[in-house]
């Protein structure tokens, strides 16, 4: 997970700096965003580890994760989360989670 957090942190600074914000304005927002991200990933891991998770629940968590990643400037990961919303194979989500 640390890999995704580090990568997102770096991208978030690049993305949000483009709008003319200073480092000290961004730091608290990004730090908080990373905590949200960590929580969202934990949540997703818990949901996909369940025996028969509801599609709606998986979709909801992936949707939230996508929005957060988009907002933090990690658009590749956000697009991946969006694609996974339409998969029937939970292993694909688990593999994605394992990849970072």
């Amino acid at each position, binding site marked *: 997970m640390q890999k995704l957090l580090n990568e997102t942190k770096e991208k978030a600074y690049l*993305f949000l700096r483009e709008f*003319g914000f200073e480092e000290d304005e961004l730091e*608290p*927002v990004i730090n*908080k965003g990373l905590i949200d991200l960590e929580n969202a990933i934990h949540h997703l891991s818990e949901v996909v580890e369940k025996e028969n998770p509801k599609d709606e629940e998986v979709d909801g968590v992936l949707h*939230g994760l996508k929005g957060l990643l988009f*907002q933090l400037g990690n658009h590749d990961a956000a697009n991946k989360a969006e694609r996974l919303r339409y998969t029937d194979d939970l292993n694909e989500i688990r593999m994605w989670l394992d990849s970072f």
Partner: protein
Amino acid sequence: MKLSPEQEHFFIERIKKEFDRPEEEAAETVESLQKLLYEGDMKIVYDLQYRVFKANDPAYTQKLLNFLFEGYTYLYDQTVERKEKEKLGVGIRQLFTFLFIERCTYAKEMEEQSLVSQHILKSVSDRLNTVLKTQERMIANLSHEMRTSLNTIHGYLSIIDESKALRGEQKFQLKKAIHGAVSLQSLVKDILNITKINSGQLEIQKSFFDMEDMLLQCIDHLSIEIRNRQRITFEYESMFAPFLVYGDQMHMMEILINFLTNAFKYTEEGFVKLKMTYQKETKGIRAVFTVSDSGIGMTPEQLQDVFNPYSRYQKKKQGLGLGMHITKQLADRLGGELEVKSEPGVGTTFSFSYLFEKTQNYQPDVKGKKIYFYIEKSMQERTYVKEKIDFLKYHGAIVKTFKAENLLINFLLNAQKDIPDILSVLSEPQNYTKIDALIYYLRSGKRFEKTVFLAENMRQHLSLKYFDDLYEYCAPVKIYEKLLKKDDAQRKTGGVGLSVLVVDDTETNLDIFRLFIGKDYPNAKVDLAGGGYEGVGMCKVKYYDIIFLDLKMPGMNGFEVMQKLKELNIALPPVYAFTADVYKSTYDKIFEYGFEGILEKPLNPEHLNEILQRITNAETAE
């Protein structure tokens, strides 16, 4: 061969006269001289050499030289035989050689040795300096790294604290962790400061600044301490200072914050008071900043030691005892003077006095602006308030003062055309909430929309919602101009009192939203709701100019929220869907539900500003 009695007499008399020696000693010296000249006995040479060395006085050496030269000439003239003359010559040469040439050689050798010693010392000193500099750099880097990490730790702990995720025992432990992180931050800051001072890296950066503004910033820095220490009354008193001074504001603030921190540290109950006075002198304006407390005080011995490093006089208190040492170093570098008075059990007063040689008169652009005040009775006679009002009048402001609450309320409820640009309230603490509610009432009826309501001298932290600016103490005079300018700028962009509600279940999205809106609309009031139910609840009690609504939320989704809002039977402002679902089906559904438009995720500030501009333009046109 021997000196004749006349010759002996000649030398004895000369020695007595020139060197102020008794007869007996002079006779002994002549005897020794005789032995050198005629027997080659070197005793006198060593004696004289020693005396020259011991006296180390050019005048004595000169006198001795004259004596020897005169004596030699006298003897030489009286000697007839060539052989005797030669012997005389040898003796006198030996004397000169030993006394002067050897001394010169010795001096030369000493000089060379001294150069070698200096060279060795310099090289040792250079190496020591390099080691010290490396150490200082290492400490500075280490402290910097520690500070960065500590900021992160403190930041995360504060986020956990603010999220209210922990309760009971865990909350208590979290508070302890935050307290520890704050103490460590302060220690690291002290170490960094002292390293900078010792290594001469402390840069003095001067600029023009407002002293009152600086003092309020110092108070802000201590605001948590002031609020939490309920057994201590914090007092602030400043002379009215309508000018800017030229100096190093940052380091002066550091000195005053150290004073204040120290006062709170060593005071259990009573008061802590910050005061500023100034007077004009021929070379400029001398300001005296004083912090006094009713704390434990210091004995004369402790007082002597107070500016020395590591001089904590209560070991149970936190800190390294560097604060006051740093303060002294800073004051010295700035060229100010520190003074401390203390009495055990009574309290301590620290003061910092500084002569500002350059000042700039402040000329506010308030001509023709209506600045109205409501001033409660106890404040009406305050010199500060009177001087401030006179100053504003002098610069062309139209000032009106209400001296009773009923007069103010009567005015606010009935005024039609006489609308002030600023209405400042200096009241009893309990009245602010009442006036806050009145402002809400007036603005709901679209009245006094362009008036900036300012709450001054509240003397405590009050959670007021509708005042435009709040000051726990009297606001510095430049604030009025600043508020008027801000108001003008808002009018130009049509952003007066823009009130925004953002509903999203992800906290980061809300934070980023607030960040983006604040950039171009610093005065917009942004309320954040973490879910649909909360959003609907907020719309019930407050009118918003615009709402941004996340579509996919747990509990009540965005469409359901929209439905509920319509059912509320309130004047519905434009509602924008805030979504990353940019599919045609979503678009269709959005308009079907009565949304004004879509704001796509990730948030694009340009698009957001376009929407806000549209709203503010529409308001101005009305």
